[in-house]
């Protein structure tokens, strides 16, 4: 009798709008562990996350949310960038006027431009800090070597994206920064001149360069970056989440216990767990992860045995943490954009370079080096540094000290890295603050 009533109410109009809501969100707000699992699992936007996440990965002092912050800044950049595209024209005769329009007539124009500019600077800084975090916690060790390599490329693309955007306002700052920046590229042996010509589409910075930088900035580089970020995230999942210390890797005290439990479990269970961990090879290639019953959403539910579980449900623990990082990122950008306007100098005057002509701040370390030696400072040393960065996980092959800040076992590696990082930061600071007319040493005070 009651079933009949239920069926009738399902078919009647009275089921509206609840049935529409339920067709969109297949799970009600979860109240049980099973519900928390299937919410993460069946929602398109949540399924990038694991159903359960290790306590160690959730510690704010471990990651400082830097990777997420970079992602959210990129998101802000995409949204504000697309909005700015509605009013921008990549033409040497119009671009600067459009900047003035953004400032004067377009509703929220100046605010959007501020958000875009400050997020871009922020992203360069945050991506760099994220790289430092990953290095100093030894998180690039196997199996995560290649994800580090992808990360290095993401850093380079971030720099290039910011650099290509720098030209678009077509003011003095833009023109001379790009003139100086592309001249540095011209110092590369054999290909330098050709790279510069391809980049500028002409012998000097002009209309062709503006168009090329625009296409790179709004189409080519964002697509490449998005693709690499996707692979970057996917690999984090397939490598079993964030790197953590060895003693935290398994849910138990002895590393052998998980394998043993998997062997005792029926074959289907082992396969299901193996597939979820990214390997279908079965017990032999069983990743160092433990699954509680609720961690598996599909497949047979079999009791595996009293493993100590160090994981938490992503709903709500991980999602709350991510939301917090998102809110902090957006809030920071909004506040900065309210109080500080993105710089806009005089329109381009190709006859009068400012003195000194400076590249964007993140290239000022490079420019400082160039003032000592054109080839070594501009090309030789940076190339070696990038090569070293790319090879880091293949040079440093010890498996000790993963997942801990400043691990004792990694003293040498961390010291070397910090030395390089600090030297580069100091060079950027010198180039930004301590260099005046004729690139002579000045005091900012």
């Amino acid at each position: 009798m009651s079933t009949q009533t239920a069926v009738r109410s399902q078919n009647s109009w009275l089921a509206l709008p609840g049935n529409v809501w339920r067709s969109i969100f297949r799970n009600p707000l979860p109240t049980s562990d099973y519900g928390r699992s299937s919410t993460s699992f069946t929602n398109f936007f949540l399924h990038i996350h694991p159903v359960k996440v290790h306590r160690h990965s959730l510690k704010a002092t471990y990651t400082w949310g830097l990777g997420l912050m970079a992602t959210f800044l990129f998101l802000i950049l995409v949204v504000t960038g697309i909005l700015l595209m509605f009013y921008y024209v990549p033409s040497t005769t119009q671009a600067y006027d459009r900047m003035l329009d953004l400032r004067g007539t377009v509703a929220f124009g100046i605010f959007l431009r501020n958000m875009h500019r400050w997020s871009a600077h922020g992203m360069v800084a945050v991506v760099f800090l994220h790289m430092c975090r990953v290095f100093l916690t030894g998180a690039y060790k196997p199996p995560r070597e290649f994800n580090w390599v992808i990360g290095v490329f993401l850093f380079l693309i971030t720099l290039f994206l910011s650099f290509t955007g720098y030209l678009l306002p077509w003011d003095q700052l833009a023109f001379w920064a790009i003139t100086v920046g592309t001249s540095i590229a011209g110092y590369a042996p054999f290909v330098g001149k050709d790279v510069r010509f391809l980049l500028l589409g002409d012998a000097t910075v002009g209309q062709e360069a503006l168009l090329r930088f625009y296409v790179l900035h709004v189409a080519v580089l964002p697509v490449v970056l998005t693709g690499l970020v996707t692979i970057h995230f996917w690999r984090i999942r397939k490598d079993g989440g964030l790197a953590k210390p060895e003693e935290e890797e398994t849910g138990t005290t002895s590393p052998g216990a998980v394998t043993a439990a998997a062997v005792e479990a029926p074959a289907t269970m082992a396969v299901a767990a193996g597939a979820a961990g990214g390997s279908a090879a079965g017990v032999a290639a069983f990743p160092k992860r433990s699954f509680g019953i609720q961690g598996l959403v599909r497949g047979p539910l079999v009791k595996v045995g009293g493993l100590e579980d160090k994981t938490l449900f992503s709903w709500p623990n991980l999602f709350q943490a991510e939301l917090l990082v998102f809110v902090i990122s957006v809030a920071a950008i909004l506040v900065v954009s309210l109080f500080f306007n993105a710089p806009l100098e005089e329109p381009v005057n190709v006859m009068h370079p400012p003195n000194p002509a400076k590249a964007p701040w993140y290239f000022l370390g490079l420019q400082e080096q160039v003032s000592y030696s054109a080839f070594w400072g501009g090309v030789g040393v940076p190339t070696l540094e990038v090569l070293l960065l790319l090879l880091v996980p293949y040079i440093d092959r010890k498996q000790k000290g993963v997942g801990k800040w400043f691990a004792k076992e990694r003293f040498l590696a961390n010291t070397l890295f910090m030395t390089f990082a600090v030297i580069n930061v100091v060079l950027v600071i010198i180039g930004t603050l301590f260099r005046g007319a004729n690139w002579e040493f000045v005091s900012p005070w």
Partner: protein
Amino acid sequence: MIKNPKPTNDGSPEDIGRRRMLSWLSGVGLCGSAIIAAASNLVFIKPRATYGQPAKFAIGKPEDFPAGARISLDTRRVCIVREGDKVAAISTTCTHLGCIVSVAETGFACPCHGSHYDQDGNVTSGPAPKALAWYQVTLAPNGDLYVDKDNEVEAGTYLKV
């Protein structure tokens, strides 16, 4: 009873050889296509015509430049030097980071990063890595002087007018 036709890919040695051959050919074909595609994109992206200033341009009659004149044409980024009956064109683009150098008492000076050059464009101080370029100057039949920035000449190469 119907007999099944003999399977062609029976794993016999000659069959494996054929398969390996085919997959090798496919691999070479795909890689080759990728390389050709990349190369043609590179050719495409390199402009055949530039829309900025032409590299070869007229600068006027020889008598526009009196003996001893050092006249900097900033829009053309070139300095016209006349000594007696000889004319030359020296680049005013700094070899350091591409700023425009200005004509100074001693030669040329760059406002951006403090490079100094002598009268012939040789570096005397500052971070500039090499001397300023000299460009070919020609006299057209109509009596106009032309500078060709695509043609670098050795320093000290003058045109007699």
